[in-house]
């Protein structure tokens, strides 16, 4: 049995997999430890140092699929990829297709990862630091808790979106900072970044909260559909998250009879008398 450690880096895993494949090491003979910082090649079998004789031919698309699935946090994170690689390189392309047992799991992971990247694009909430905080600090900061390793690649989206502004996204694991010119990724989010993102005050959040509660139509209340699209694990980091339970219960206790928000109904109305004002 060969036991490996790749430090959760795809590039390291790829080198290891290339070596294993060249020596025709069967997937049942290898495992990747996720936590123990073992020797790179801790094993009870003698291991030849160089590449072996087997030359695998794999479709180009496979590498991209594997790299994407590698971002998934879950059991057999790395050994599953090696099993797929093994089967495809031995002529069984079904291992990368939905329908096959292994292929379905691979595709499911890829889907989850891309969904999580989309969640980052959608649910990150930037808060502006006070004006004049200084050019060494970001102008906008966000705290986000992704379920998979998507921050580094998915955060590039904000470079196009935010123009020359400086911004930072901190997570429990890693962090990114865009200084106006380049994106800096830290695999271990620096404590200072974390502090900044988690402790920032947001004195101007009222506009967005007002918008959110007034664009909601209580006559169409459907919390189940909402939770399907906006999983509750995100609520705590969304400013509007704390409004949700109140809006639901208000709708259930009377506001459901028409679409108007309660506060708007409480204001004086105004008919427009002339058709030619």
């Amino acid at each position, binding site marked *: 049995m060969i036991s490996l450690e790749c430090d959760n880096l795809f590039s390291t895993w790829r080198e290891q997999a290339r070596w294993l494949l060249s020596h025709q090491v069967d997937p049942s003979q290898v495992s990747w430890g996720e936590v123990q910082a073992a020797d790179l090649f801790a094993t009870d079998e003698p291991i030849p140092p160089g590449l072996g004789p087997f030359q695998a031919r794999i479709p180009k698309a496979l590498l991209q699929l594997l790299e994407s699935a590698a971002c998934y946090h879950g059991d057999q994170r790395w050994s599953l990829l090696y099993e797929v690689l093994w089967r495809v390189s031995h002529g069984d392309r079904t291992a990368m297709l939905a329908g096959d047992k292994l292929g379905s799991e691979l595709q499911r992971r890829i889907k989850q990862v891309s969904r999580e990247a989309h969640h980052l694009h959608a649910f990150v909430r930037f808060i502006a630091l006070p004006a004049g905080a200084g050019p060494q600090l970001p102008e906008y900061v966000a705290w986000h808790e992704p379920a998979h390793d998507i921050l580094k690649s998915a955060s590039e989206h904000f470079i196009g*979106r935010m123009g020359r502004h400086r911004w930072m996204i901190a997570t429990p694991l890693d962090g990114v900072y865009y200084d106006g010119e380049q994106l800096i990724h830290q695999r271990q989010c620096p404590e200072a970044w974390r502090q900044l993102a988690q402790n920032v005050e947001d004195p101007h959040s009222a506009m967005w909260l007002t918008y959110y509660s007034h664009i909601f139509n209580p006559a169409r209340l459907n919390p189940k559909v909402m939770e399907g699209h906006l999983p509750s694990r995100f609520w705590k980091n969304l400013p509007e998250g704390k409004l949700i339970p109140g809006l639901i219960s208000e709708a259930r206790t009377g506001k459901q009879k028409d679409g108007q928000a309660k506060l708007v109904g409480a204001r004086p109305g105004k008919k*427009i008398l002339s058709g030619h004002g």
Partner: protein
Amino acid sequence: MQLIEKLSILADAAKYDASCASSGAPKRSSEGKAGLGSTDGMGICHSYTPDGRCVSLLKVLLTNFCLYDCQYCVNRRSSDVPRARFSPEEVVTLTLDFYKRNCVSGLFLSSGIIRSADYTMEQLVRVAKLLREEHDFRGYIHLKTIPEADPALIAEAGRYADRLSVNIELPTDASLQTLAPEKQIVSIKQAMQTIYTGEQTVLNEPRAPRFAPAGQSTQMIVGADDTDDSTILHGAEALYGNFKLRRVYYSAFSPIPNSPKSVPLAAPPLMREHRLYQADFLLRSYGFSANELFTGPGHLALDIDPKLAWALEHREVFPLDLNRAEPTLIARIPGIGLRTTQRLVDLRRERKIRFEDLARMRCVLAKAKPFFITSDYHPQQADSTSVLLREQLRDRPQPQQMGLWG
């Protein structure tokens, strides 16, 4: 009036428009540039409200003062609602603030009709122009188009907006005359034609100034009058054909405060709206025609989806052999979508499709089971009558909490 009060009134006034898409825009980026915003064709839903609808754009009216008296509209002139009006600069400020917070991907601006159609349209265009030219805003802009406005103003709107929309409002001319007497079907369709012509003019002309690159859409209110689904979907099909609309949005009529007697004061027909969207998707993406979905006047079934309804009426087509059938036919199997169809086609290039493969794909197996054959499976239900199958496959209504309508 404070900006926040205006926002509460003018967001509340805008919620009845169902459209919120931010998709279809060309690739734009602000990397290394002054200004803000990007688009890449994909829409982003930045939040969801407890009605299950997505928040993708800042959707507001410029003003809810309105000269018209459309019966279904909360902002009609005889409605006793609070009124407000944004200045164009205020809308710009809100858009940029929400955009920087990453709460929205752009702006969807509409308006009540004030002074004249041209004046109102000018104001809408002015907001878009300010965003694009003064603030280098490259996010998504959707402008509602006032049908009676000068075509030159619509053309100007198309240069700044990604999407334009003219609301058809009601499915028939007669209903429009009854419920929205100031609106004319002729001018609505003329405005759609103006937008369509604008799109065609710049098509395949890479150097032409852009014109509403995300196309045009419209909205139809469902349930404010008694038009049937067949008329609605035939109407939608004609709009897709005549003006190449990207989307027809169906909006279940939602009861409004101080409801006039001419429209129902009842819970919005959400299931009906859902079935219309499903049928609309069959028209746009599955190659169905409205005539296939309806043999005559009438409504879509509420208890089964329209694809299942079609399959039950066309048992002679089924069961289909997944190892041989044309992909377009596979996609007509209930419970099997376009994505699963593609996956089946990919897999059958490598080997025979087996029953258990389906179980691992994201399809609704219970619904699909009577309608396909694999190398190791032939449906027992192939000989069941459609009546019996329908009884087995129909959606059972969820137990409902007693609402205000009980």
